[in-house]
């Protein structure tokens, strides 16, 4: 068995790239996050930990069925229970909160219906909030739920995506005319010709992806506090994009930005689940305003399963053509996806399918591509962007097709990839779907993947073991990952989601550096890398840097955490602010020391002589003079020791990254059980700021991807209710069944920023399902069996083997 790996402290990964600052000591180094020590002592502050005076608690009565008309609500008994403060219905909330329609102008033709914080006369999924009960304690509010009398009439539910558009299927929103949310087609031409070539071989398969959900360990939660005295709303929220919520609260409740503050302290996991505006977010705020006291909403686990977004319900018919010699000629996909009854606010539920169209075939040189997408409404929990948004689906389909065709023409899976990926010297390049690729490293990553997993040895062992009826498989997935988005993602579509982020750096009188960033912390280590970047940009030790995030009253305006943009966008803002602050500090030193600026340098927390490195002025002394003894400075000079800079990536719609994953599995062909033996990930996120954080970020994402590939699925009964909406029945990966995961880095910095960082948050989820599915199919190859429906359960494997 493996030995525990060495403590990775201060492993250095920056060395092979040119430095971005004068004295780069922290960027590129595996520095532990000292800031999380408090979390190991139980001293975090998550939303549910916050107590406020007069705090009330809300629980929601949610629709117990997929589709219903509400005919009568009798609330007097609930209202009469001691401790109950109010029982509120949808119309009362709608009187102060405007409805929304989640569409984006650049997703041509996307439509959805107006959605309210709580259902008015109809509820359209099991879990839609209908009635709110506010009480002095959560327990009393839950008691009162049992005293509500609600009568309803069940309506037919639209569940099956395949028949959602049939004329005989009822309409979920009759005013929309059909159950189609969004459709897109793309055709480069040349696809039919490619498949018709005399030297072409084709491979075709249908891929099914089950719905799954995020299961953040801390459920969604918030406290809304409306203060009628100063007419101000404060919302403590477990959320990824505080400024976005500030804007939405302003617009839905007709408030000014100056009236709304959103505070996100510790956030217990997010993964895209906490970047959407949920109906109960608005309902909680409305209740706080109606009752004029703070109201806390904490989803319990059972309601999180039916109210957090779901994701990834797709059925994709797909095919690939290649020459007999192994040149990939064309891809074609037809994607049908179901999103629940509404497009989710404000990012829309059209983006995921759109990404599948953009990304399928993305790593390869082929020029012929045809894709069709249909996004349909259903009476199930709304789906929207979850970690990796479309990536795992596009990657699994692409990579299964590549393996399928390789097997058909008798080519090794890595060899076919080496022959067909866009070469490392061909960038910038444009993918067949039209995506702009700045700089990727598929060839380098494939080489590294082969090396770290000792591919040839694995293959040799595999054939050896087959003779003993042990069936192991090796699965490879090459991937691209969209990161550092520009305004092309949401802004151009009319969504008020900032594409830029800002950083303010302040030198305190004692020489300590305070960094305020619009990108917050949900565990990825954003605050830690901002401290590393700031320390190097200014020239101080990291122990002198503190970081403040997650408060719209305190930080610059910005987009927050999503689409793997925190390091690439937020980090660049910190770097730029730091470089200017360094200059301002030196200008101050010039004024104090009466020495030429050109002879001064900032080095390790002090102003030094540029030639000799002789320490001339400590930052604490500089701060003391600048702040407290301005009388000693020239009258014409004012020290500017607080600097703000913003950064938006504008060179490309997105900065793509890439990587390769290899999965090694053993399939028990009698039980259908899959044992994960080991997993390797080679990733390129441009400049690595802290390799230790990237490693575990990758591993966490890989494990989530494995969850989707093998375990996780929101299962519905025929009437549209969730069958496994609890943690005992909805399986997520645990430590015992997960493999050791080896992570290796290749660095191709983006030239769109000085820092050169690209995102690293989603590549793991993007690649794992494809690598695992390919590994299982590789193990099953001797039986001529294949699986193509995720999660790949033992039952599906046994069916593929013809054993059941």
């Amino acid at each position: 068995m493996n030995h525990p790996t060495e403590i990775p402290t201060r492993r250095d990964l920056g060395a092979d790239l040119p430095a971005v600052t004068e004295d780069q000591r922290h960027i590129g180094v595996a520095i532990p996050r000292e800031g999380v020590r408090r979390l190991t002592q139980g001293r975090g502050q998550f939303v549910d930990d916050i107590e406020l005076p007069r705090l009330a608690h809300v629980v929601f009565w949610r629709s117990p069925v997929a589709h219903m008309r509400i005919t009568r609500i009798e609330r007097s008994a609930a209202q009469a229970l001691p401790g109950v403060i109010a029982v509120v219905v949808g119309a009362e909330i709608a009187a102060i909160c405007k409805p929304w329609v989640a569409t984006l102008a650049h997703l041509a033709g996307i439509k959805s219906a107006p959605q309210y914080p709580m259902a008015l006369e109809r509820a359209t999924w099991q879990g839609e909030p209908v009635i709110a009960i506010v009480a002095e304690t959560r327990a009393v509010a839950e008691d009162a739920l049992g005293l509500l009398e609600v009568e309803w009439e069940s309506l037919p539910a639209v569940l099956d995506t395949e028949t959602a558009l049939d004329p005989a299927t009822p309409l979920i929103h009759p005013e929309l005319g059909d159950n189609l949310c969004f459709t897109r087609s793309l055709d480069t031409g040349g696809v039919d010709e490619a498949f018709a070539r005399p030297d072409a071989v084709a491979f075709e398969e249908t891929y099914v992806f089950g719905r799954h959900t995020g299961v953040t360990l801390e459920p969604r939660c918030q406290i809304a506090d409306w203060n009628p005295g100063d007419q101000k709303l404060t919302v403590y929220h477990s959320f990824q994009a505080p400024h976005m919520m500030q804007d939405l609260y302003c617009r839905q409740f007709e408030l000014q930005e100056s009236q709304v503050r959103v505070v996100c302290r510790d956030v217990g996991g997010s993964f895209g689940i906490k970047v959407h505006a949920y109906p109960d977010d608005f309902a909680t705020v409305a209740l706080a305003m109606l009752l004029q006291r703070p109201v806390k909403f904490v989803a319990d686990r059972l309601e999180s399963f039916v109210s957090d977004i779901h994701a990834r319900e797709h059925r994709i018919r797909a095919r690939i053509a290649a020459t007999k010699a192994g040149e990939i000629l064309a891809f074609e996909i037809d994607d049908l996806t179901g999103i629940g009854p509404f497009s989710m606010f404000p990012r829309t539920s059209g983006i995921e399918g759109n990404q599948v169209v953009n990304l399928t075939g993305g790593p390869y040189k082929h020029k012929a591509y045809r894709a069709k997408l249909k996004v349909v409404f259903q009476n199930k929990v709304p789906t929207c962007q979850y970690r990796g948004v479309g990536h795992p689906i596009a990657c699994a389909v692409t990579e299964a097709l590549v393996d399928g065709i390789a097997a058909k023409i008798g080519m090794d899976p890595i060899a076919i990839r080496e022959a067909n990926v866009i070469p490392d010297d061909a960038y910038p390049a444009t993918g067949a779907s039209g995506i702009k690729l700045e700089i990727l490293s598929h060839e380098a990553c494939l080489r590294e993947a082969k090396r770290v997993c000792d591919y040839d040895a694995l293959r040799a062992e595999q054939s050896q073991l087959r003779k003993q009826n042990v069936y192991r498989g090796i699965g490879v997935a090459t991937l691209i990952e969209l990161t550092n988005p520009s305004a092309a993602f949401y802004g151009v579509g009319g969504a008020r989601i900032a594409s830029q982020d800002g950083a303010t750096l302040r030198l305190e009188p004692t020489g300590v550096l305070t960094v305020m960033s619009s990108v917050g912390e949900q565990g990825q280590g954003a605050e830690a890398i901002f401290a590393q970047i700031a320390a190097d940009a200014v020239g101080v030790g990291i122990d002198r840097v503190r970081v403040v995030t997650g408060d719209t009253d305190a930080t610059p305006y910005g987009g927050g955490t999503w689409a793997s943009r925190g390091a690439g966008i937020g980090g660049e803002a910190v770097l730029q602010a730091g470089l200017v602050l360094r200059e301002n500090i030196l200008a101050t030193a010039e004024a104090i020391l009466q020495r030429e600026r050109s002879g001064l340098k900032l080095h390790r927390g002090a102003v030094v002589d540029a030639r000799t490195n002789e320490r001339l002025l400590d930052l604490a002394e500089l701060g003391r003079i600048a702040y407290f003894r301005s009388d000693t400075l020239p009258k014409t000079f004012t020290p500017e020791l607080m600097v703000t800079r913003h950064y938006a990536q504008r060179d490309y719609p997105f900065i793509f990254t890439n990587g390769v994953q290899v999965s090694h599995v053993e399939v028990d062909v009698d039980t259908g059980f899959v044992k994960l033996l080991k997993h390797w990930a080679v990733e390129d996120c441009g400049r690595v700021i802290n390799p230790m954080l990237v490693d575990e970020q990758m591993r966490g994402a890989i494990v989530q991807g494995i969850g989707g590939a093998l375990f996780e699925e929101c299962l519905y009964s025929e009437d549209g209710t969730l069958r496994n909406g609890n943690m005992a029945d909805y399986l997520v990966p645990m430590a015992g069944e997960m493999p050791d995961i080896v992570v290796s880095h290749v660095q191709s910095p983006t030239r769109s920023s000085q820092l050169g960082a690209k995102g690293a948050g989603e590549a793991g989820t993007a690649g794992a399902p494809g690598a695992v599915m390919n590994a299982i199919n590789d193990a099953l190859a001797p039986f001529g069996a294949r699986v193509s429906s995720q999660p790949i359960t033992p039952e599906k494997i046994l069916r593929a083997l013809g054993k059941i």
Partner: protein
Amino acid sequence: MNTPTDSPKRRVRVEVNGTPIVREVECRKHLIDFLREDCGMKGSHLGCEHGVCGACTVRLDGQIVRGCLVLAAQADGHRVDTVETSTPSKRLKALQDAFVEHNALQCGYCTPGMLMAALELVEQKPDADRTQVREWMSGNYCRCTGYHAIVDAVCAVLEQQRAGRFADEPVASADEVRA
């Protein structure tokens, strides 16, 4: 239709992290809610409230329990330890350090429960290998990390223990624990 249960109360006396606490609590109240709401110990978290995720893991008389499955009344007269203890044992302190060193936490929501589970492992299974650590820790969900770093951190503390680092701090025997 349900009617709310009467909520009879009972006086409980629990030693929480070394401090005796006396409170009047509803008999139906779970230990985790008692700790969080009545004792102000917010370190242990709720992830599922149905005994699956392990976020609420605390020690009751030295043995780990799920705070969401034990009633506060059952803890009457007993000792409860959470990760917030201001006098961590050497092993707990070593685990906390190792979690930071190895980046064995991201959001940190699972961490208090993980640490309690890991502490019991280190005390009860000093010879555990990597596979056994993975199995033992499988009662606790982590949704952020890939578990790899958590396993690394626990293995590192086991190694330290085998090298004699905690020799002067004996582990309570299973009998004492139960007594």
